[in-house]
C-alpha cells in the first residue's frame, strides 16, 4: 500500500468517526465536535511549525490562544460609551510610559559602561518608571471600571459599526472576522517579546519560560477588568454567521428545511454550524497550503537542517537564533488566529476556562500522535485527538456503567466512579501519548 493511500485511508477513517457520531448521537453533536476539531487542527499546525519544523519546545500555547480570544473582544465588541474619554486614553498613555521605561532601561544597560553606576542607573530608571506608570495607570483603570460595572466596566472593542447600527447591519457582524488576523498579530507580538528573551537558551528553559508566560497572560486576562471584564466574561460578541432565530423567522428557510424533512429549529442550528465549519475549513486549508509551501521551500529545508544539527547549520552561515525567533513568532501567530476563531465560535470570552491541560498539552498530543514534522499529520492528529477528548467521556461513562452493573444504585463505590468519569479522559490522553511515543514515536503520518 503506498503512502498516499494509507494517509487518505487514515483521514477517511477519522471522517467515518464524525459520520458515525452523526448517525449514532446527532448531527448537531457531530458538527459541534467538528468545528472545534477544525480549530484544534489549526492550533496543531502552529505547534507543528514550531516543534516539527524547528524543534522549539513551546508549552505556552494556551497563552497565545487566549490572546487571540482577547483580540476578538477588542475588535469585535461594541465600544463602551464614554470609556475611552473617561480613562481609556490614560490607560493607553500609561502602557506607553511603561513600555518606554523598559526600553529606556534596556538602552541604559546597553549604552552605559559596565559597573556599579550602570546597575544603579538601570534599577533607578525601572523604579521611577514603575511608579510613574502606576500613577497614571491606576486612576485611568478606576475611571473605566466605574462605568456601569454590572454590564460593562471595560473599554469594549473597536466595532464602531455595531455601535452605530440601528437595525441588523451585516457589516457590523462581519467586522468580527477582522479579529482573526488581529489575534494572530497580538500573539505574534507576545511571541516576539518571549522569543527575544528566552530563545537561544536551552530547550528546557524555553519550555519553562513559555509555561510561565501563558499563566501570566491568563492572570492578566482574569484580573484586568478594564481590558475584557476579567472573570466577569464578555458575552454577546457579534458573529459572522446568521443567528438561528433570524433563520427560523425567514419563510424561505423554513420552507427549504421542510422540503428536506427537518423542522426549522434543527435545520437552523445545523445550518449555522455548517457555515462555521465552512469558514474554519477555509482558514485551515489556507494555513495548510502555506505550511506545505513553507515546508517544501528552501526556508523549510533550512529550518529542518537547523533542527537536526544546529552547529552544522551555524557553520553554513545560518543565524540560528534569528530563524528560531522567526518560526516561533509564526507558529504562535497561527495559535492566536485559532484562538480568535474559537472565541468567535463561542460568542463569548471566558478567561476562567483556559486550562493548560486543554489548550497546551492537548495540542501537543495532537502534533505528536499525528506525526511531528508533517503538516497533514498535525491536522489528522487535531481531528482525531479532539474527537477522542470529547468522546472518551461518554465512552468511559458507558464502560463504568457496564462494570458496575452488578452494584446497586447509590453504592458509594459506584457513585464515586461515576463522579470520576470526567477525569478518565486525562488518563486516556496520557496513555495515548505514552503508547504513541513508545511504539510509534514518529506518529501516524511520519515526516518524509
Amino acid at each position: 500500500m503506498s503512502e498516499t493511500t494509507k494517509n487518505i485511508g487514515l483521514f477517511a477513517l477519522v471522517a467515518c468517526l464524525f459520520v458515525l457520531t452523526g448517525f449514532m448521537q446527532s448531527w448537531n453533536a457531530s458538527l459541534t465536535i467538528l468545528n472545534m476539531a477544525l480549530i484544534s487542527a489549526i492550533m496543531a499546525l502552529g505547534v507543528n511549525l514550531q516543534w516539527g519544523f524547528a524543534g522549539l519546545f513551546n508549552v505556552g500555547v494556551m497563552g497565545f490562544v487566549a490572546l487571540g480570544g482577547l483580540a476578538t473582544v477588542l475588535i469585535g465588541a461594541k465600544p463602551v460609551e464614554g470609556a475611552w474619554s473617561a480613562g481609556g486614553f490614560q490607560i493607553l498613555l500609561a502602557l506607553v510610559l511603561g513600555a518606554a521605561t523598559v526600553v529606556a532601561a534596556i538602552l541604559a544597560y546597553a549604552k552605559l559602561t559596565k559597573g556599579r553606576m550602570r546597575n544603579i542607573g538601570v534599577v533607578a530608571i525601572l523604579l521611577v518608571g514603575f511608579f510613574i506608570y502606576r500613577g497614571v495607570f491606576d486612576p485611568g483603570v478606576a475611571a473605566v471600571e466605574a462605568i456601569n460595572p454590572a454590564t460593562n466596566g471595560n473599554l469594549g472593542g473597536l466595532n464602531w459599526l455595531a455601535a452605530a447600527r440601528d437595525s441588523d447591519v451585516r457589516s457590523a457582524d462581519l467586522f468580527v472576522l477582522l479579529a482573526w488576523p488581529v489575534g494572530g498579530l497580538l500573539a505574534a507580538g507576545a511571541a516576539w517579546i518571549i522569543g527575544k528573551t528566552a530563545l537561544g537558551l536551552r530547550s528546557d528553559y524555553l519550555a519553562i519560560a513559555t509555561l510561565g508566560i501563558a499563566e501570566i497572560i491568563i492572570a492578566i486576562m482574569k484580573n484586568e477588568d478594564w481590558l475584557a471584564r476579567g472573570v466577569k466574561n464578555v458575552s454577546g460578541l457579534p458573529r459572522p454567521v446568521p443567528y438561528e432565530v433570524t433563520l427560523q423567522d425567514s419563510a424561505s428557510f423554513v420552507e427549504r428545511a421542510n422540503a428536506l424533512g427537518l423542522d426549522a429549529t434543527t435545520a437552523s442550528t445545523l445550518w449555522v454550524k455548517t457555515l462555521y465549519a465552512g469558514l474554519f475549513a477555509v482558514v485551515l486549508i489556507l494555513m495548510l497550503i502555506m505550511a506545505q509551501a513553507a515546508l517544501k521551500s528552501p526556508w523549510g529545508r533550512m529550518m529542518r537542517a537547523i533542527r537536526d544539527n544546529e552547529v552544522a547549520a551555524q557553520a553554513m552561515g545560518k543565524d540560528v537564533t534569528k530563524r528560531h525567533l522567526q518560526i516561533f513568532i509564526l507558529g504562535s501567530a497561527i495559535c492566536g488566529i485559532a484562538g480568535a476563531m474559537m472565541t468567535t465560535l463561542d460568542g463569548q470570552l471566558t478567561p476562567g476556562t483556559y486550562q493548560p491541560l486543554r489548550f497546551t498539552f492537548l495540542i501537543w498530543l495532537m502534533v505528536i500522535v499525528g506525526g511531528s514534522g508533517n503538516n497533514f499529520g498535525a491536522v489528522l492528529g487535531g481531528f482525531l485527538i479532539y474527537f477522542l477528548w470529547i468522546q472518551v467521556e461518554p465512552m468511559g461513562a458507558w464502560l463504568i456503567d457496564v462494570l458496575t452493573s452488578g452494584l446497586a444504585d447509590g453504592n458509594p463505590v459506584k457513585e464515586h466512579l461515576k463522579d470520576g468519569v470526567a477525569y478518565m479522559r486525562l488518563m486516556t490522553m496520557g496513555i495515548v501519548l505514552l503508547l504513541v511515543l513508545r511504539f510509534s514515536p514518529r506518529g501516524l503520518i511520519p515526516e518524509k
Partner: protein
Amino acid sequence: MDFLNALVVLSNFVLIPAVAYGSQLALGALGVTLIYGILRFSNFAHGDTMAFGTMLVVLITYLFQSWGISLGPLPTALLALPFGILGCMLLVLFTDRAVYRFYRQQKAKPVVLVIVSMGVMFIMNGLVRFIIGPNDQRFADGERFIISVREFKQLTGLSEGLAIRTTQGITVVTAIIVVALLFWFLNRTRTGKSMRAYSDNEDLALLSGINPERVVLYTWLIVAALATVAGTLYGLDKTFKPFTYFQLLLPIFAAAIVGGLGNPLGAIAGGFVIAFSEVTITYAWKKVLKYLLPENLEPSSLMQLISTDYKFAVSFAILVIVLLFKPTGLFKGKSV
C-alpha cells in the same frame, strides 16, 4: 516602639510566611533538581507527583481520624506521612519501570523525556482527580497556633501581634530535618557519593563500576519522599487542591533554575529567593511604613507593588532575569 511594631508586622506578614513557603518550594525544587542532575531531564510531572503523594497522606489522615488516632497538638498528617511516602515511592518506581527506563536504555534526547513526562503528568493528574476529586481538602488538625496574636500582645505589650501557625513551625522544622538528612546521605554514604559521581560525570562513574540502575532507583525513592513531604507541608499550610499543585510547577522550576539546575544547594537558595520575592512584592507595605515613616509622609495607598494575582509573574520575572544574566543559575548548575 514604632520600630518594634513595624518589625512585628513585617515578620507576621512577610518573613514567617515567606520562610514557610520558601521551605516548601525548596523541597519541591530539590526533587526537580535531583531528577535533572541524575536522569537529565526536566520532570513536568513533578507537581502531580507531589499531588499524588499528598493525596495519599490526606486519605490516610482521614482514615486515622476516623479511627480516632491523633498526635495531640500536632497534625495527624505527620503520622500518615510515612505511608504516603511509601505509596508515592511505589508509584514513581512503577512509572520508571513502565515508562522512563525504556527511553534511558535508548539514550533518548532529554527533550523526548520531557515530552514523556508530560504524558505521565496527564495520567497522574487524572488519577489524583479520579481518586480524590478536584476540590479543596482541609486535613490540618491539632493545635492551630504555636503563638497567637492575642498571646503575643499580652506577652510583649506591643500594639501589633505576631502569630506563628503550627503548620508554619512544622514546615520549617521538617524542612531542616529533611535537608540535613539529604545532605548527609549525598555526602557521607556510599550510595549518595555514587549519585553525585553519576551526576557529575556519567562516563567516569560507569567506568568506576557504579551501577546506574541502582543510582536511578535511589534517586526516584528520594524524589518521591521529597515530593510527598513538600506537598504535604504545602497542603497543611494552605489546602490540598490538585490544580494548585500543578501550578506550583512554575515557582518550583523557577527555584531550581535560579539556584542552578542539578545543584541541591542552589535549589534551596532558589526556593527562598523565589518565596521572599513573591511575598515581598505582593505585600501591601502600608502597615509597615505607617510605623516607620513620620506622620506627614504616611502613604495613602496600600503601597502594594503588584496584586497577589500576579505572583506567578514575580517568579517568572526573576527566572528571566537570572537566565539573561547568569544562565547557569546563582550556584553553578549544569547546562546540558
